[in-house]
């Protein structure tokens, strides 16, 4: 998974979160078609000889493979963008385009690393302001979520540090990770940024 942060023209910061999946969709399709042709070809020959029960198994299997490839490849387009600046924290989520967005007041935004009640559930990174909560970085690894919490905490300001006392307050996260700031202007389309 990858996170990058960009300094915007208004001295704000923009964090772009993206899963580390970079499939060549055409190549994936070619391989899927290649597997399907062979698998269905075999199943059709079996059916020709009267062994039709091979066909539904081939169909089920190829459907599962297709779904698996599609889901994992599609996930690569997921983006979450957090803009911090001008007293606002704007969060956008989407796949290729902005599908959901939130705007929080920077001064009242807390960064929370929320430990879940069940041990197997992953720790959530939450931005919280005036009762409104936005979960971030579902596709990030735990370490990266911690690192992002720390960066966001630093960027958003003093209130951010109030939020996550129980689990791992942003300020108390070990200071071993850092997102480097590159002087690039962030574009306004989620898709472009994702590219």
């Amino acid at each position: 998974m990858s996170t990058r942060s960009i300094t915007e023209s208004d001295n704000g910061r923009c964090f772009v979160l993206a899963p580390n999946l970079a499939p060549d969709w055409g190549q994936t399709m070619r391989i899927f078609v290649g597997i399907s042709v062979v698998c269905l070809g075999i199943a059709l020959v079996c059916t020709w000889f009267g062994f039709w029960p091979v066909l539904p198994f081939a169909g089920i299997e190829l459907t599962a493979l297709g779904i698996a490839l599609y889901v994992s490849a599609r996930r690569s387009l997921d983006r979450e963008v957090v803009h911090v600046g001008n007293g606002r924290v704007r969060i956008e989520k989407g796949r290729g385009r902005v599908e959901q967005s939130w705007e929080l007041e920077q001064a009242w935004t807390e960064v929370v690393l929320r430990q879940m009640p069940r041990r197997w559930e992953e720790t959530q990174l939450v931005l919280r302001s005036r009762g409104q909560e936005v979960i971030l970085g579902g596709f990030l690894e735990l370490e990266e979520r911690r690192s992002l919490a720390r960066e966001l905490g630093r960027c958003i300001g003093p209130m951010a540090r109030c939020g996550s006392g129980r689990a791992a307050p942003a300020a108390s996260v070990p200071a071993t990770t850092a997102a480097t700031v590159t002087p690039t202007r962030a574009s306004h389309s989620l898709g472009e940024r994702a590219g």
Partner: protein
Amino acid sequence: MTATTHEAGHHADEPTGLTRWLVTTNHKDIGSMYLLFSLAMFLVGGAMALVIRAELFQPGLQLVDPYFFNQMTTMHALVMIFGAVMPAFTGLANWMIPLMVGAPDMALPRMNNWSFWLLPFGFAILLSTLFMPGGGPAGGWTMYPPLMLQTGTAFPFVIFAIHVLGISSIMGSINVVATILNMRAPGMTLMKMPLFVWTWLITAYLMIAVMPVLAGAITMLLTDQYFGTTFFSAAGGGDPVLYQHIFWFFGHPEVYILILPAFGIISTIIPAFARKPLFGYSSMVYATASIAFLSFIVWAHHMFTVGMPLAGQLFFMYSTMLIAVPTGVKVFNWVATMWRGAMTFETPMLFALAFVFLFTIGGFSGLMLAIAPADFQYHDTYFVVAHFHYVLVTGAVFAILAAAYYWLPKWTGHMYSERLGQWHFWLSVIFVNVLFFPQHFLGLAGMPRRIPDYSVQFADWNMISSIGGFGFGFAQLLFVWLLFKCIRGGEKAEARAWEGAEGLEWEVPSPAPHHTFDTPPVVR
């Protein structure tokens, strides 16, 4: 753009204890479970082999009745193929493929968890059939009708168990394909992938292609038995020989499913200990793909004796012999890699070298079996048993052992005891030859396979073979002990445990942290 960096060793809020293993989606945990499961199944299947060899120690019926003997031969094969070798390769794939391609985990981690936990479930059903009225399956792992249809209460359970194991294999393969295609580190093009990853990609392709055939074949057995169909019953217009065709259409690629990842392992280990890059990387990739392609068009060499037209015999004979060409390319490349290399002979390398020698013997006896007129003599004799055990034990199993020794430092963070490893290797390699080489002589002399009793002229070589069997079996306990010791402690392993080892997996610390490559490495 810069990605945040990874920090290891801070995972206080991760599940611990039994829950961790039940619900884990971490590829390393699942890989470890696969490997430990396969070791357990290797010991179970090995115990069954010892029952067989104990009964065959001398002529006559000594220990078990013939029907139980047949159950042992059937279950030994099913357990070793579906329980030991395939899960071991899947375990290695789980552990190593994400590390080798620079991915944080498998593409579909939850499916990964599910595909593992189906295995113990499937094997619990399969092994429980031994205690059912009428006993377990006794018709051989090929499950030919009508013999297989004579199985007692166990029959539907066996079919269900094989379906479950098949689903597990398919899900594992789908995950491997999705991971390799979608999660490679930036810069890692297909032709930069390690050979182990390549061979697994092709293996997964084979599995996806042929598993529906197995599923269809065993479902037809089920419907023939319980739903009045006559796919394989001549009385109703069906044909039992066609079962053999479709079974072997699955079965022969299955043989390559069991050996292609082994080729990948050997292609990883030999360069590391020869301290030279692999000779002919591209030709290795193309040879693997060629073997996979040819595996689809050679199936009937398993059934020359059922009667087929001369043209069919010639086609299957020549196409089978053709496989020797890409396999020869591989053996040549391994030898060329070692040529003038600065070789050292640690345990992984010893097993890899033994693989090259002994697998080649299995390959040559395979060529003998490919000759249709000769096969009429060898068919269903111990020569066939010797052949496929040279391929599967000194081939697949030795490669898995080589891989285990090679990557143990990365998995456990400790170096294993080299002295114990060398003992394990030498005892294994000596006894495995004592076990299987005499079976060539028995087969050439005409001893049929799958029999609990035999004529007295076969007594001497059978006795020697059984001694080899027990020696080989007990030598594996050394490996279990070594493994236990290595997990518990030992000399600390460095990130790059072997001087000549190359690849992304050696860039992370030993033991590999629970989460790796949160930030994808860049391959140049």
